[in-house]
Each structure stands twice: as structure tokens, then as C-alpha cells.
């Protein structure tokens, strides 16, 4: 009896694996998501090889060559301190990816933990966590994060902290919803029937099944994290100069928009390129995991 149940569970898990493969096939078939993936790969490539791609250093100023127009030496011109703009933008990808990944990991950790707790235990635990989510959702993410970052003091890690503390609610809600549906699933009930303990059920069945949701969410939340951190930098409470951050470069360029419009425009373009890449991937993943939500 017990043996039969175990085998049944193994079979049900087998189905899950082939589902992952199907998901990958569906993802590959979606042209936009492949384009998105290549966008992101380009940004990662730039971040890794920035020193090779440009002869300049991002902090290297040149007082006699300020706000220069694009030329052979400076393909995108120079900024208000005479630094090569292209160099700063290329190095900026490092900051952007670093901050973006840290935010997503941090808020993902908080959100997924709370979501697991709320979904698994239900009752008053769920009630308290979801009320907390409701409360935080009453504040615009960017505005509350700006206030927190402003109060804690500027800097890269405070940006991550501020956005993470505010932004985890989306994860918590999605993970909770997913768990509520998994809890009802046959293989979890079968595992309980086979006499497995609560902890082992969570680790062996629930967590692995929440993982796909979490992966999609990381890709979906990356754009928000990137735009939020860039916006904080733009407003002056984020990553501080002289660190090359796209948001603060755009902010600095705004003051020289008449003389040197290329500063703000190119900085924004880099943000758009990266975010678009992640959005295409996220969209493709969502459709690949849940083909019914697609057309028809």
C-alpha cells in the first residue's frame, strides 16, 4: 500500500519534470522572449567587459573638454565634468544589474518567506501577513522607498534596503496564492497519506512547486526594481555620484538638456534597453508556464 503510494508520487513528480521541458520548448518558440534574452545577455556582456570595451575610466575628468558633442574620441560626447559619457554608461550596467539583482533577491527572500508562511499556515498568521501587505500596498512603492532611503541616508545598499522593504508584497501574494492551490493538489495529499511529515512535505513538494512561480516573478519584478532604483537615483536619494548610475546620469543631464541633450537621452535609452529585455523574457516565461493565459 505504502509502496504503491510512493510510486504514484514519483510518477506525479515525473510529470512535473517533463512539464519544465515543455515550458522551455514553449519559451524558445516565442520570438519576443528570445529577443529579450539576447538584450539581457548583451547587457551582461557589457557589464563584464566594460573595461575592455572602452579606453577611458568612468571617473576620469577633463575640465577642458566639458559637455563635448559626440566625436571620434568620445562617441557619445562628455558630461558636465568632461568624463566620457559612453564609458560611464557602459560601467553603469554594472551598477544597474548589481542593484537590480540585489533588490530582487532581497525582496524575493522576504516576500517568498512571508508568502510561504501565510499560505501554508493560514489562520491568524495569514491574516496578519496579508494585512501587513495591504498596509504597505497603500503606499506608492517609489515614494515610500524614497522616504526610507532619504531617512536612512543615500547609498547603494540603502537603495536596495528601501526598495526591498517596500516591494516584497507582490511576491508574498503570488506565492501565497500558488501554495493555496498546491495544498489541494493530489500529490501533496498523497504524500500526507503516505505518512510524510509536514517539514518534509514543505521541502520536498511545496517548495519545488513554488519555484517556477518564483523564477517567473524574479523576471517580472526585475523591471520594476530597475526602474525604481533608477528613479530614486534620478530624484537624488539613490546611488550617489561619482558612481556611474544611469538614473543619476540622466538627472545630471537634465540641467544641460539644451547644450547637451545626448546625456539624458542616452542614459534613458540604456535603462529602456535593459528593462525591455527583462519584460520580454518575463512575458515569454509567463506564457510558457501558463499557455492557457495566452491568446484564445
Amino acid at each position, binding site marked *: 500500500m505504502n509502496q504503491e503510494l510512493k510510486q504514484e508520487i514519483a510518477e506525479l513528480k515525473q510529470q512535473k519534470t517533463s512539464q519544465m521541458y515543455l515550458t522551455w520548448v514553449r519559451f524558445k518558440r516565442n520570438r519576443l522572449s528570445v529577443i529579450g534574452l539576447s538584450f539581457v545577455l548583451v547587457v551582461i556582456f557589457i557589464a563584464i567587459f566594460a573595461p575592455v570595451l572602452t579606453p577611458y575610466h568612468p571617473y576620469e575628468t577633463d575640465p577642458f573638454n566639458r559637455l563635448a558633442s559626440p566625436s571620434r574620441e568620445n562617441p557619445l560626447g562628455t558630461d558636465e565634468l568632461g568624463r566620457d559619457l559612453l564609458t560611464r554608461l557602459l560601467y553603469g550596467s554594472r551598477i544597474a544589474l548589481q542593484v537590480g539583482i540585489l533588490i530582487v533577491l532581497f525582496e524575493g527572500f522576504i516576500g517568498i518567506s512571508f508568502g510561504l508562511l501565510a499560505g501554508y499556515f493560514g489562520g491568524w498568521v495569514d491574516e496578519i501577513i496579508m494585512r501587513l501587505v495591504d498596509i504597505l500596498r497603500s*503606499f506608492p512603492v517609489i515614494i515610500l522607498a524614497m*522616504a526610507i532611503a532619504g531617512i536612512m541616508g543615500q547609498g547603494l545598499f540603502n537603495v536596495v534596503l528601501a526598495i526591498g522593504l517596500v516591494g516584497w508584497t507582490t511576491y508574498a501574494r503570488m506565492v501565497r496564492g500558488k501554495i493555496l492551490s498546491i495544498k489541494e493538489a493530489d500529490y501533496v495529499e498523497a504524500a500526507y497519506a503516505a505518512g510524510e511529515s509536514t517539514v518534509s512535505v514543505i521541502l520536498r513538494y511545496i517548495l519545488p512547486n513554488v519555484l517556477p512561480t518564483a523564477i517567473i516573478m524574479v523576471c517580472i519584478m526585475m523591471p520594476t526594481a530597475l526602474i525604481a532604483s533608477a528613479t530614486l537615483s534620478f530624484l537624488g536619494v539613490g546611488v550617489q555620484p561619482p558612481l556611474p548610475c544611469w*538614473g543619476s546620469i*540622466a538627472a545630471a543631464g537634465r540641467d544641460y538638456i539644451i547644450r547637451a541633450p545626448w546625456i539624458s537621452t542616452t542614459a*534613458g535609452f540604456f535603462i*529602456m534597453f535593459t528593462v525591455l529585455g527583462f519584460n520580454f523574457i518575463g512575458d515569454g516565461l509567463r506564457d510558457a508556464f501558463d499557455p492557457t493565459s495566452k*491568446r484564445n
Partner: protein
Amino acid sequence: MNKWGYVGKRLLKTIPIIIGVTLVTFLILHLSPGDPVRIMLGPYATPETVAALRAQYGLDQPLPLQYFSWLGNIAQGDLGTSIRYNRPVTELVQARIGITLTLTLAGLVISVTLGSILGILAALKQNSWLDYLCTFQAMFWISIPGFWLAILLLYIFGLQLRWVPIAGLSGFASVILPALTIGLQEEAWFARPMRAEMLGVLNEGYIKAARAKGVRYYRVVGKHALRNVMVPMITMLALRLPWVIAGSVVVEVVFAWGGMGSLLVNSVLARDYPVVQGILLIIALSVVLANLLADLVYSLIDPRIRVEGGKK
């Protein structure tokens, strides 16, 4: 359950959220790494002024007591006094909130109208070039930061084409670009759900039944389908409101409008904490209120909600 039971239940659920919102706003101040009063006053303040300010804010008292006296002041409409301007926060906000409100509302109207029209058209012409265009443009707008869109529009239409005034508030023309910035960004968040909801509703039996009795197709869409997608779309509206407000804060900064948003950003940078707290509270409470309103509107649209007692 009758209608008023539903309303009462919904109101009751709002109370803990309002309390939580005030708590978050209050506690934020204590996230600062050092003594908030010293940070507010800067490094050159004398011990006397520090002590005076501390007494003024009641910071020498235990935390719970501080919270309740702060709450008491708020209940009386007193949001504290700005350190930078040395004027009541309410007064500062009152002078500027109209601008932010105008911008938020204009942005909402543009985004909801544009998004709904595009979403409906995309659903009616499913898998046509129009449908793909709608999906793609939505993806594009959500992928660019609001401040950049604002700068681009300002540069192209203000500086190059000179169609609209470039900065400050001067009549209707100056509202166009800022409102358009928010409208375009947020439109994307309405177009895609509208398309999906519409496609779902158009497959419902009552759509076919309405057509079977000879109702014109545009009327079937305009009356039967539209009313049924309104509930999820209002949910979306309530969900996006905080983002629209945040958008208007950013846009105010770029277009140099002296609204509540600019005041907030400047106060954050100047560490004028009473102003920051006051504005945060106002924004959060309006979001809570809007959510409450949305729930009440559902029950007006959908008779089933009144009966089931607001099961969402």
C-alpha cells in the same frame, strides 16, 4: 446580507489598515541611523536648539506615547510644523495639493480612456496587426522610466518644436505634456488587462444570447460586455492609483511644478521629516480611501457581490 451590511463590513476592514498606515508613517522616522533631531538640524545646531526641538516633538517621551500624541494631533488636523519653512505642514500642503491632484486626475483620465479603447479594439480584432501593436506599445511604455519619458517629451515638444511651454504651470497647454507622460505610462497597465478581460467576457453565453435576440453587436459590446469587464478594471484602477501618484511626483520634478510631489522630494532631500511624514500619510490615506470607494462601486455594478457579502 443586505447592501448596508456589506458596506459596514468593508468599512470595518479598513480600520486596521488605516491604523497600520499611520504606524508605518510614524515609525519611518526611527529608521534613521542617528538621532533624527540632530540629523534634521544639521551638525552645527547648539545643544539648546536640539533639546528644544526634541521637546517640541515629544521625542524625549517613550515611543508609544509619542505615537498617540502624534495621532491625536493628526486627528485634530495638525500634521506638525515644517523645519525648513517653519510653517504648519497642512498650510504648505494646502497650497500645493491642487497641482498634484490635477496632474493625477488628468493622468488617470488619459490612461484609462486610452487603455480601455486600445484594449477593447485589440480584443475585438484578436490576432490582427492592431492587436499586436497594442501589446507591443504597452510593453514599450512599461519599459521606460517615467522621468526619461518626461525629459524626452519636454525636449522634443517643448525645446525643439516649441509647441508647449517648457516648465512651470501656465494654463492648459502646460498641463498637456506632464499629463501625457503619466497617461502614456499608465495606459499600458489598462490596455492589456482590458484586452484579456474583454476576450473572456466575449466568450460568455450571455453575449451569444444577447446577439440571438438581435441586439446590435456594438451594443452588445458597449452594454453587456463593457459592464462585465468594469469590475476587474476598477480593481486595476485602484491597484494602479499609487503608481499614478508616484508618477506625478516624478513628473512634477522634471517639469518643475511646485506641487505636493516636488515638496515631498525637496523635503526628503532637506530632511524636513514632519513634511515627509505628513505627505506620506496624505497619499497613503487617499489610496486607502480609493480602495474603499472601489469596493463600494463594485457592489453597485455587480448585484452578486451585495449578496455574497463582498467575497473577492
